[in-house]
């Protein structure tokens, strides 16, 4: 709204405005430069081995943050809906995988596939039952946010009602490690990073090069304009929910596997980090969410070198708030998204 032009009566000094517009022109490069500087500093102070170790941890977290964040940001971009229930879709994914792999005894990979499908179906159902009728009623931002908060309560506590609040585990071996140039990487962690990055690249390519991906991004960019060009918006909206749900289901299984345990609260705890990833990347920008997820993951894990691990989430939020102060639309966001 007010980036770029200084509104009447704004107390901002012109020097500050110059800093802002300078930062705006090269935001991504500047931010990566700062990350590189921090990385270099950590390398000098703590050495290669510890830094490489936390960077790998950061990539593990970053890959499931990014998977969760892409769905969140696409739904926001297309429907202007900040989905507070998205974290609980991750939880749902983990619990569905648990039901099919541990309770029924299917192989985890099959359970994961079922979980991805069912969470996608659930996401589509929420669109058809709740959000589409609300858009017809021209519901405002607050109403939609409150509705997603209500949905989040229902999902989380239905899971707790039927499955209890005790920790569950997918029975994945999280202690096995692989030695690689002097680094020990958890075997499961390695699988999570590889699966996560492959899916992220596939989604990235899909969004970049396929017709469907271009239509999704066009809708996220400007819904009305996209509609006038003849895009079947109804179909794209449903497919976006399906993609969002599927990625959330996958991310949920990956979180549960790499951390080793989960509770009904797991997804909600992650939600704020997902929001951070989305916001950092610019709300509505899928590539931004991808990059934002990795950046938040790495920031959180890097911070465990100088600070206690309990602070890592708080530190990533502080980084986010600082970025927002300098650049209110996030690093990769355009001014129009404000």
């Amino acid at each position, binding site marked *: 709204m007010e980036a770029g032009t200084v509104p009447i009566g704004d107390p901002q000094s012109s020097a500050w405005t110059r800093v802002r517009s300078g930062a705006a022109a090269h935001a991504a490069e500047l931010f990566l430069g700062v990350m590189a500087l921090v990385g270099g500093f950590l390398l000098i102070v703590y050495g290669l081995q510890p830094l490489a170790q936390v960077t790998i941890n950061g990539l593990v977290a970053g890959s499931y943050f990014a998977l969760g964040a892409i769905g969140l940001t696409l739904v*926001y971009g297309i429907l202007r809906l900040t989905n507070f229930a998205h974290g609980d879709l991750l939880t749902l994914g983990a619990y569905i995988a648990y039901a099919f792999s541990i309770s029924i005894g299917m192989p985890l990979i099959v359970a994961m596939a079922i979980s991805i499908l069912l969470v996608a179906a659930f996401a589509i159902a929420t669109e058809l039952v709740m959000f589409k009728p609300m858009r017809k009623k021209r519901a405002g931002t607050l109403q939609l946010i409150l509705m997603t908060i209500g949905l989040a309560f229902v999902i989380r506590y239905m899971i*707790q*009602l039927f499955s209890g609040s005790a920790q569950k585990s997918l029975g994945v071996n999280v202690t096995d490690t692989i030695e690689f140039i002097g680094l020990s990487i958890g075997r499961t962690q390695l699988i999570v990073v590889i699966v996560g990055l492959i899916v992220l690249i596939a989604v990235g390519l899909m969004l970049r090069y396929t017709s469907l991906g271009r239509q999704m991004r066009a809708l996220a960019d400007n819904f009305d304009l996209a509609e006038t060009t003849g895009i079947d918006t109804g179909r794209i909206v449903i497919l976006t929910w399906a993609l969002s749900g599927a990625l959330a289901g996958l991310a949920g299984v990956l979180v549960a596997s790499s951390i080793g345990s989960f509770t009904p609260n797991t997804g909600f705890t992650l939600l*704020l980090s997902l929001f951070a990833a989305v916001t950092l990347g610019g*709300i509505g920008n899928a590539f931004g969410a991808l990059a934002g997820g990795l950046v938040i993951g790495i920031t959180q894990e890097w911070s465990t070198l100088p600070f206690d691990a309990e602070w890592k989430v708080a530190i990533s939020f502080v980084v*986010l708030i600082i970025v927002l102060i300098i650049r209110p639309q996030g690093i990769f966001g355009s001014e129009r998204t404000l």
Partner: protein
Amino acid sequence: MSVPVAVSFDFLSAWSFWIGVGTLAGIYGIFTLGLQLNVGYTGILNFGQAGFMAIGAYSAVILVVTLGVPFLLALPLSMLITMAVGLLVGLPTLRLNSDYLAIATIDFSEVIRIAVQNSDSLTGGNQGTISLELENNRIFSGTWFTVSDWIAANIFDPVGLTDPDFLNLPLLAVIWLTLILLAFGLSRLVRSPWGRVLRAVREDEDAARALGKNVFSYKLQSLAIAAGLGAIAGWFLTLNLQSVNQTAFEPIFTFFGYVILILGGLASFPGVIVGTILLWIPLEGLRFLDLPLDGGQVAALRFVLVGLVLILLVAFRPQGALGKREEMVLGD
């Protein structure tokens, strides 16, 4: 018992239980008055109210217990501290659009909660403020107990409410008196010229700006007042629980505030009072329903119902009990 669902009527006589529920309802009412000012009258989606409540509670405790400041001086001081934090939070975030603002404020409240959890020497960490009291050999509620005893002896004892069941009646009375006075004062405030500018900001920021109003400054003032109300809720929460730790300030409590807001209706301070009663009495009353569920399941069921009520209200009666439909413009 072959009947799966039965209602026990013990609840009518469980005085101390209902005094506890009323106390909680009153505290969350005060908490939500701040949200009402922000959301209902200014159009600011403040999702960090639990963070302000935490700062109010902890700064009051630290002033009294660790630093030895007299209780009655510590309260206004902690309120000023919380309002100053409100300004600090508002300065960078109030320029953001509503979704970014919601996320930035919820992140702020989480930063506060995590900081409180991990600063053991300052806040008692997960042990709660009781560990500060033990360490400094000073209690936060000392002055309050004197006041409470006086109220009990002079007001409630003469009318026969002396049973140990009524031990916490003075706290309930003071909280509800505060809630009603604040709701009345705020209702007056939003009808003043100042309040009319707030509503103009809510309806159309650009129009308010075109009339020469400093929109940003009004938003900051609104957020700072909400923070101050959060601080008051924080004191009462601490007096009620005796020892607080970070779990009392999770984001879910801000969501509860929004449920109260939507139950009672946007843009109505009496609505907040109605909303908090409509939320807490059925929610706690559910305990007396004999369901074939264990304790954890009953707790889960309560939250499922809160979620469903929230969804259905937003869908079918977004103006709540006392709100006006024409004041519901929050789409932007």
